[in-house]
């Protein structure tokens, strides 16, 4: 009898899940199979348990459905010696593995970590009970899109793709669009694209010309290192950090293909530094930006300060190592290498601690109270 009840319950649940999946317009064109992922350079979550993977080697974006992964309680997650754990599990030395990204599913706080091995293999892990479980990518519900070469837009460049590669630096989803930034191995040029999701045959792969102006004197066709789509004063905007220090705001409705897009510099975060990750965290009605950096601690910017800053930095900061523009607070976390939001908890980070320990750990939302 117990078995019958369980079976009936399972069938009911199964029906509900299938019905939900069928009703999801975002997953309507998903197929079960092997997406043939050869690298996992960046990851980000969209709605409905959809994990987007940026695969530079195969020049594709893959959307995979991870709704069947069991929910795990990560509210107190802590993994020490994370690099050694990964290396051990792959039978390699720590110098033969590299964590390429980390993403947290906003639906259930499940944590995903992507790793590259020296052999060229990419592995996706999910955190479960303070250890790692491999996520199988061989038979998975997915949809994918090939990235066309942005340089091919130039009518005269009919060839010349054999050497050109571009590494996806950042990828974020917002309101039916995937935004990507990347760096080419051939030209110093910004690759910033907006791609409609769900993927379709008439794909809009808008390539945007993003410039960076230094103090109103010189400008470069500069690559964006990390960014976040958000709202500033009620309007959609992108806040971006370049490979060098400035933080820039682009109003979304003003970024258009074929035009010369230049953002408003709102902060200089101190030289000798590159932003690594930007996330947005909320506490009740208050919003904050958290920025992880290569050579500065984790920074917290209050959206109230950011939105009330109407100026643009046009004069150089003369004091060495100093910052300017929107004020920020340094949080006591240095060498934060990966950063994401942990819903209702705070934030999640992979940090190289001063002892040398590479730790996956939680940052409390106490910092935002």
């Amino acid at each position, binding site marked *: 009898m117990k078995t019958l009840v369980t079976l009936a319950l399972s069938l009911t649940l199964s029906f509900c899940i299938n019905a939900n999946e069928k009703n999801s317009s975002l997953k309507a064109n998903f197929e079960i199979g092997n997406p043939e992922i050869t690298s996992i350079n960046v990851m980000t979550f969209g709605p409905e348990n959809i994990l987007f993977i940026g695969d530079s080697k195969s020049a594709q974006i893959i959307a995979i459905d991870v709704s069947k992964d069991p929910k795990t309680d990560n509210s107190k997650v802590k993994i020490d010696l994370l690099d050694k754990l990964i290396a051990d*599990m792959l039978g390699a030395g720590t110098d033969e593995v590299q964590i390429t990204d980390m993403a947290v599913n906003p639906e259930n706080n499940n944590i995903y970590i992507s790793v590259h091995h*020296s052999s060229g*293999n990419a592995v996706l892990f999910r955190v479960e009970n303070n250890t790692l479980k491999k996520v199988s990518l061989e038979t998975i519900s997915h949809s994918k899109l090939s990235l066309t070469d942005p340089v091919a837009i130039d009518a005269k460049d009919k060839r010349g793709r054999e050497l050109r590669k*571009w590494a996806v630096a950042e990828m974020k989803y917002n309101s039916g669009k995937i935004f990507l930034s990347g760096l080419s191995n051939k*030209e110093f040029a910004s690759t910033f694209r907006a791609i409609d999701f769900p993927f379709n045959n008439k794909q809009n792969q808008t390539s945007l010309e993003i410039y960076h102006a*230094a103090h109103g004197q010189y400008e470069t066709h500069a690559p964006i290192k990390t960014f976040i789509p958000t709202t500033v004063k009620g309007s959609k905007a992108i806040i971006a950090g370049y490979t060098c220090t400035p933080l820039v705001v682009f109003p979304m409705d003003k970024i258009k293909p074929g035009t010369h897009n230049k953002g408003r510099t709102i902060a200089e975060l101190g030289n000798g530094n590159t932003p690594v990750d930007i996330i947005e965290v909320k506490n009740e009605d208050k919003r904050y930006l958290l920025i992880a950096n290569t050579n500065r601690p984790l920074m917290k910017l209050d959206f109230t300060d950011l939105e009330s800053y109407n100026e643009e930095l046009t004069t150089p900061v003369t004091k060495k190592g100093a910052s300017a523009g929107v004020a920020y607070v340094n949080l006591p976390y240095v060498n934060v290498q990966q950063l994401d939001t942990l819903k209702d908890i705070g934030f999640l980070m992979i940090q190289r601690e001063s002892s040398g320990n590479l730790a996956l750990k939680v940052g409390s939302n106490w910092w935002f109270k």
Partner: protein
Amino acid sequence: MKKSIIVVVVWLFSIHLGNSQTGTDFAFNRYSVTVKRNLNESNTFNLYRGQISVEETENANAILGEVITNDTILRFIPLVPLGLHQDYTVIYNNHITHFSLDLPKSYELQTITDIYPSSKKLPSNVLKWYIKFANPINETNVYNHIRILNQDGDTLSRTFLNIENALVNTDGRLLTLWIEPGRQKRGLIPNQQLGSVFQPGKSYKLIVLKTLKDKQGVSMSNDFIHSFQITEDDRKKPDINLWEIVSPETSTNDLIMHSNEPLDYGSVLGSIIILDADNKEVFGNWKFTNNEKTLIFKPTDIWSKGKYRIFFNTRIEDLAGNNLKQLFDNKIDDKDQLVHKNTEYILEFNIH
């Protein structure tokens, strides 16, 4: 697994790549470990990195992989290939076994075959290098193995972009190294406060440490050292009108172009096409010589008599990131940019 019931049986094996040990009980290579099944025992199989004891395995993390069994054997297929030059420990039921995968004597250690720009004199705002390896490289943390030293032998800090996802071409052998653009771009704070990475008149060394491994996990035998001197900065766009074209004198000769300055290896090759008088593309191979100042085109078929046009992609750069259309860091009020915005970059030659 209880220590008390383990009968420790140790075999020590050392094999060469590709010649797996094929004893009756145990065989292994980079891609699998096979043991003869004992049907009277359970099939507990774990593989660990390093030569470790039974006690140590209790706190060790087993290597991920798939176990396949049939009536006679158990085969473990690791998730990623096992590494050369590394020790492993197998625990199968009550047996512990150690093995390692040695380099075959014929193994060719990784070397660097070319570096671009190859010139020993470079402008102070040089923007990137391309390093060509004999074999595919281990791309993980690859930039950690590269240094730039000044003439006193000190390692310079913040010299190039240490990006997470290495810029490596499809065959895994060409690595792009970007000099920190924030320091090369005029007006930016890193440039103003730290200065450009290189100073005119000074000598430097680019060093690729031997710790950089190939895709099999094997290091190079020696550090690679490339010395160069720095000259004044280059703030001019490359101008194809200053290039000299040596037209092929016969139908089988190569087309030769001499630039007035060294060109950027990556952005040039594959960015030039030749059309004949009927607007059909002429196929062939381009190659650089003379410190990337001379381009040689060898056509696949013989030339026909008539006029040819060479189209240059505007993104062709010099060593300082200045392309045909604009400077790397362009003065915002430069009206010159507007003039050149829609210009096509074409040169012509004739075969008589």
